């Protein structure tokens, strides 16, 4: 279970088709469930991008005559306590949850790669010091630290992306570090060092290209968890500003007071969240299996 053992390198195949095309074909052929999940995520992403066109009503428009009405032809998923169309809010919430989730994960993956990569590449005292900080960070229960920082800086989109991204990035840096240490044991790396190739060149030409599969894996297996963390934070009131329609906030705040009269208010955001995270996890697992099955480790 040690992180220092290093992760074996993915086999580099001879280039006939582009690597991306190859990966795509293998995904469709070998992982039908992963492909289906990928398609659902793609649809969600498109819905998130075109949310303005797709919402039947402006998400903040109040229809006070139709407060808390159930699902109907007029309001497909019913209305909330001030008569806002719930489907419109759910779609807009999807945009917030998914786009914030994706950008947060992108940030955390970059941070993981930078910290882990530098720590593994330079090694020595630098590595020892960085690893002690990472050790300390990892034992801090994530949610506790997140709500602590968020309560200080206040709820908001930039804050949440930055804080969730940094916090997740530090935790995930060990995988990147392991991958870089693995690369350092390869002959091509030793050869590059032996002919006196400068650090920067070695890093750009030999380490970075070979660490890319691991970077993609880190991104795809963490994005689901990030969206869940975001929802938990919003649910506790430490995520997005109150009144935002992201899926976590829809389940908390004022809406909670009316859930017994209108249970659909609680049902749909949670279902949307579960399905999205399920698909992201399935897709992430498929990507990991395709790119580097040896990373499976703890999950089967």
């Amino acid at each position: 279970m040690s992180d220092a053992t290093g992760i074996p390198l993915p086999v580099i195949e001879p280039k006939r088709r582009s690597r991306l095309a190859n990966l795509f074909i293998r995904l469709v052929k070998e992982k039908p469930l992963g492909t289906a999940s990928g398609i659902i995520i793609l649809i969600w992403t498109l819905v998130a991008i075109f949310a303005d066109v797709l919402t039947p009503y402006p998400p903040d428009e109040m229809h006070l005559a139709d407060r808390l009405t159930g699902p109907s032809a007029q309001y497909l998923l019913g209305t909330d306590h001030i008569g806002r169309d719930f489907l419109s809010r759910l779609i807009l919430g999807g945009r917030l949850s998914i786009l914030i989730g994706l950008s947060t994960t992108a940030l955390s993956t970059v941070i993981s790669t930078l910290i882990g990569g530098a720590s593994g590449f330079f090694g020595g005292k630098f590595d020892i010091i960085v690893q002690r900080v990472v050790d300390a960070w990892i034992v801090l229960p994530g949610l506790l630290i997140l709500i602590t920082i968020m309560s200080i800086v206040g709820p908001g989109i930039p804050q949440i992306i930055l804080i969730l991204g940094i916090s997740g990035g530090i935790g995930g840096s060990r995988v990147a570090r392991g991958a870089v240490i693995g690369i350092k044991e390869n002959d091509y790396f030793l050869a590059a060092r032996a002919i006196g190739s400068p650090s920067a060149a070695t890093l750009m030409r030999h380490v970075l290209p070979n660490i890319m599969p691991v970077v993609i894996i880190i991104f795809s297996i963490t994005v689901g968890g990030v969206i869940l963390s975001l929802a938990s934070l919003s649910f506790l009131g430490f995520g997005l500003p109150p009144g935002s329609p992201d899926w976590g906030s829809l389940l908390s705040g004022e809406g909670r007071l009316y859930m017994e009269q209108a249970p659909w208010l609680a049902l749909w955001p949670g279902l949307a969240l579960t399905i999205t995270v399920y698909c992201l996890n399935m897709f992430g697992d498929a990507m990991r299996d395709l790119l580097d099955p040896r990373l499976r480790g703890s999950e089967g």
Partner: protein
Amino acid sequence: MRAYIIRRLLLIIPTLLILTIIVFLLVRFIPGDAIDMMVAMMVADHLGGGAWEIDREALERMLGLDVPVYVQYGRWMGVLPTLDWVTGESHFKGLLQGSLGTSLFGRWAVEERIISRLPVSLELGVLAIVIGLLIALPVGIYSAIRQDTAADYIGRTAAVMGMATPNFWLALMVMLYPAIWWGWSPPMEWVPFTEDPLGNLGILIIPSLILGTAMAAATMRLTRTMMLEALRQDYIRTAWSKGLNERVVVVRHAIKNALIPVVTLIGMQMPLLIGGSVIMEHIFTLPGIGSLLLNALKLRDYPVVSGVNMFYASLVMVIILLTDLIYPYLDPRVRYS
């Protein structure tokens, strides 16, 4: 072996030191806030309007917020003396002396409050781990020995679903639908175990089931993977070829080896479990350490926030340390390499 244990123990010291710096600094970014909050509360509580001017500087001095951050850190650690503004004496009172600080509101000791609330959170956590293992181990083992059957697929799908379902949403559903369908809602009035054991379990069973199933998902997947790996080993083939029956092969040979890594997973899941317990304590209004933290955050009671973070982080560290130290004893292969 001895060298390993000593090295592992020595490594805690720098980690713990960095941990105290992180925990301490996290809440000191905006020191003025707590004072503003106190001033607002004092004005609202006692003076009904605010005709009275409050001496901010005196308040800061009383709370020890008037000195530079590194001095505050030194006092918090217990290497610099703290001045008691009631008695006027200064003495060393910090982490090194076993003190986690004093609340800004009410002057109670943080560590005492944590200890008084510990039974609730501990009971919730232990129940969740027990429930998680009771679900995960049988399902994971069965899933592996009947690989690629319908039961295996159902078990695996359930596990992936379990990992994707937000536990706070599950809790909301449990509170909501039984109430609508049968007019039943989970009991919310807290009773200590010592007063009414059954009533106490009745309150905790639902939150611990929700937390337990969330933990079971990851544990089940690991158990299954490790079982599959163990079943592929040579000693299993030997056991089969000796003519042993399936029960003996699975129980005596495979499970024993497969479950060793699962021990470490319990340690690694602790941060997640603690985060989950904060959410459960919030939804089911349980008087545990999580709700203490949420309350303190609302009031910006920084010493309490630092204290709870420090307490839980040290707990996680000790548990991960213990699982690391136990590991070589459980697995002779590690011990001799």
